[in-house]
């Protein structure tokens, strides 16, 4: 069996969760008996590559200079390269199975091209967020009111984007869904996301949940809790308007000073500089007094390889996102590190963390409820160990690859 894995980025250049998941699937499949050849094709924006060209990165790994020209219909920027370079590549590689880990930055036409060029190949598309459903950065949050969105419809989408007509949204959905018809099977990393796509139009019996694989390492033991040390809560991830860092800081500000004295919130925050000045100003004002009184420590960005070390130093991991999330990598990473998670009670977060079992829920977008949750873990430090004991170790890359192989075997009959 010949396998092709397509990713919207190569981990050499892009370290997003989906890119890493794709690459690790590739690495795991390479080793499998029965896999004659595994090829990794990653979209690249290296300016040294001509537009549309596909070039070897290293043995079995290729870079494709490609981009999106129209983010509304998710159309390719170099459409002709789909029918030329990509088609030639497919004909040379002749994969029996194609795993597409994203078409973002590539163009949704790539899906139909695989089907056209390789009519017998099995095509499996892994969905990572709601981009195909929602034009608002794939967040399923209302653009104007910032409220949570429960269901796509062309009329409602047009309310979010008053300059874009309902007809335009119909055309968008039509274009994307017709391309999705080329896909044999869809993989969702969470049941929540799966349901959203079923509501939107993917047949129920052609989409399954496979959790992303995780690196495996020895868990650092939990530190002994005593009254002399502050309880450490860590936020890990990007600071965007959807990630809820401002909400977390609001909640800490609400705590009584006597509680704050016993708490240390660490913000391991990436991508802060790219945010709006309004968000930066909000966060700056919220964090200043907390840094002064020692209850917040602004740690800053981290390399992927550092995450296990950093997580091992906290007692709790917090995911305060105000959007649904899909299957946040940070939750899996916390569980690999053996740390319980506090998260909002919606979407993929609520699915991955069971309230009172391996973590705690707070009411999404509610700083008061988050403050009460923080108060609860400070006043009840033993809760950490109690919930940590219930954490189930996430799948390894190898286990994840096994599940994918079983899916392929099922599809190939």
């Amino acid at each position, binding site marked *: 069996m010949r396998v092709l894995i397509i990713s919207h980025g190569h981990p050499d250049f892009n370290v997003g969760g989906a890119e890493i998941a794709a690459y690790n699937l590739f690495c795991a499949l390479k080793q499998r008996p029965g896999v004659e050849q595994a090829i990794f094709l990653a979209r690249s924006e290296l300016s040294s590559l001509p537009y549309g060209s596909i070039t070897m990165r290293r043995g079995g790994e290729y870079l494709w200079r490609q981009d999106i020209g129209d983010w509304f*219909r998710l*159309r390719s920027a170099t*459409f*002709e390269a*789909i*029918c*030329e370079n990509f088609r030639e590549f497919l004909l040379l590689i002749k994969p029996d199975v194609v795993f597409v880990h994203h078409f973002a930055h590539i163009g949704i*036409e790539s899906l*139909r*091209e695989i089907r*056209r060029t390789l009519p017998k190949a099995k095509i499996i598309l892994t969905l990572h967020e709601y981009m195909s459903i929602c034009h608002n950065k794939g967040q399923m949050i209302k653009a104007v009111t910032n409220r949570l969105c429960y269901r796509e419809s*062309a*009329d409602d989408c047009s309310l979010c984007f008053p300059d874009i*007509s*309902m*007809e335009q949204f*119909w*055309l968008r959905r*039509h*274009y994307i869904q*017709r*391309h999705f018809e080329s896909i044999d099977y869809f993989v969702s990393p969470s049941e929540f996301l799966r349901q959203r796509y079923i509501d939107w139009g993917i047949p129920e019996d052609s989409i399954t949940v496979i959790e992303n694989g995780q690196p495996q390492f020895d868990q650092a033991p939990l530190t002994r809790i005593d009254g002399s040390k502050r309880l450490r809560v860590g936020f890990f991830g990007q600071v965007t308007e959807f990630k809820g860092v401002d909400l977390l800081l609001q909640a800490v500000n609400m705590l009584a000073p006597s509680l704050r004295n016993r708490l240390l919130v660490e913000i391991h925050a990436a991508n802060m500089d790219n945010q709006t000045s309004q968000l930066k100003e909000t966060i700056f004002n919220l964090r200043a007094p907390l840094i002064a009184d020692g209850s917040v420590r602004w740690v800053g960005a981290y390399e992927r390889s550092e995450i296990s070390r950093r997580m091992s130093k906290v007692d709790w991991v917090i995911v305060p996102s105000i959007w649904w999330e899909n299957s946040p990598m940070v939750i899996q990473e916390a569980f690999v590190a053996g740390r319980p998670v506090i998260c909002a009670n919606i979407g993929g977060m609520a699915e991955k963390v069971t309230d009172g079992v391996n973590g705690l829920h707070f009411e999404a977008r509610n700083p008061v409820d988050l403050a009460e949750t923080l108060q609860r873990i400070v006043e009840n430090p033993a809760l950490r160990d109690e919930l940590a004991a219930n954490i189930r170790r996430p799948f390894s890359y190898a286990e994840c690859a096994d599940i994918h192989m079983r899916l392929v075997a099922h599809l190939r009959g």
Partner: protein
Amino acid sequence: MHSQASFEEIATVGEPSLAYSAEKQGAVEHGIHCDGCVVYGSELIISGWVIGDAELRVIGPDGELQRRMFFGFSERPDLRVGYKLEPGVRAKSFICIVRDYLGEKLTIAGYVESRTVVLTACAAFVIIDAAELSDFIVGHIDKSGTIFRAMCDSPEWVALLLPLLPLANESEKIARANMEDARIIPGFGGLVVGWAFASGRSELFIVTKQGWARRLSQACRWHRPDIVEAFSNDFGNSTLNAGFVAALPSTLQLADDIILVCANENFAYRLTSRKLEAITEDPLTFAKWSFALPTSINNFAEHYASLDGPILSRLIKGQSQRNLQIPPIDTFFGPVVTNPKCSIVVPLYGRYDFMFNQFLEFADDSFFTQFVELIYVVDDPRIADNVLRECPALYEYYGVPFRVINGGTNRGYSSANNLGVRFCTAENILLLNSDVIPIESGWLDKMITALDANENVGIVGARLRYPNQSLQHDGIAFQWHAPWGTYINKHPGMGMEPTAPSKTPVERVAVTGACMLLKRAIYDAVAGLDEEYLIGDFEDTDLCLKVRKLGKSIVCVQDVNLVHLERQSFVEQGSGSFRSRVTQYNSVRHQERWGSYIATLVGPALENN
């Protein structure tokens, strides 16, 4: 009433004719005198004076003169002194203009209560030249208004009068006016728009230096609240309906002046003037300007007939002529389809991204890839290069062969379709809008079957749906629209949940051109779509009616699923919008051509649903 004999006895040329009061000895009660008669061209002007309140009439050899005549009067206080007139007895000078004077001897008679009181023979006429006429008018400037009104249909007279007229004095509350816009396409005509009103018996005229003049009462008028508010304290109800728009003749040139003149029986004044400006020959640009001019609902037909209509129709014809000179360029993408069963013509205007969605559907319809000749007509130079740039990859990606006819200009919906049809090679022609997206295969097959099943069928349309699957089109019905006085095209059931589809085609009065199938032979027999509607509206029903006239029927296929991304009908939108005015314009044209025929069709047998 009176005879030649009595005239000979009483009248004496050159002498005043007087009548004295019965009660007061020696007091003059009535009198007439003729000062002189001048002839310029074929017009006679008699001047003189009259005492008392006798009504003046002109008597010719055969009795009272049956000719166009105009009297004008002004006060003569000097006569009151000279004749020692009693208080209450009036003395006035007069002129009388006799049009088409034939040289006969004339007498002026004064009547009181149908009784001839005084009578005077007219002096022998003197023929004068233009300079002498000017002098005469200057000498009678207090009756220039009568002369102007009498002669406003004569360019020669108007041109001669105009420089002699004084500017209106604002302190005299006679009239106010302003021309807000005046535009012309030389050779085609133009429009002037503004507001004007005059008090009392004054009349307003639109005039050019060349002598063209029209009464403003013939213009389209409407209510201007701002003018009423500003002037009604001084001018009362004469400020109502101050707004006007009037047609200008095609003979005018750019930079000619348009002048507004106010005339009563005494004076004529120049009120205001404005230089003509240019407007493009492009019909749409002209329509955008002229349709934005206000009009009252009832005025529209009049507006159409006398103002926009003639100019627009000339502009559209002119544009069609020019477009014929622009050669279309035909480009093939993929192999030539031999012996196609159907040729599809899809005009592209403004945007072309619909192609992406259409191709997705066409590519998966095996009937399409085998039997269809697909022709896109680019009717918009702004998008031509982008379309042509996309096309090679569209063919490579979708594998559906097609042609692109680049029309090189914007011809409009009808003309673009007609152009595309010229390139069709199949026996069947489908006109398809770019925003119609079929979402189930087999639709075209069904339509062709419906056309071939019965040779009586002239046109096959299709049920179309909105994106949310509600009904967009299931056949067209004509509905009388009283405010416009026209039939308009209605889509019965539009916006509703579609009824269960009939398995067989259903008969309709007409169907939309958004998706319309017919034989090439029929298309040619009725000369295709009419190209003289503005923008794209009504030409589909026009085509349907032409085909009906051939004795053919029109059917609609219901068991298909095509989405039409058209917005809600604009007829329901505010009546002021441009689109609504375009519809109204086209509906009036449609009505002129088809109104009486439609009236015979609108019966229960053909009403939809």
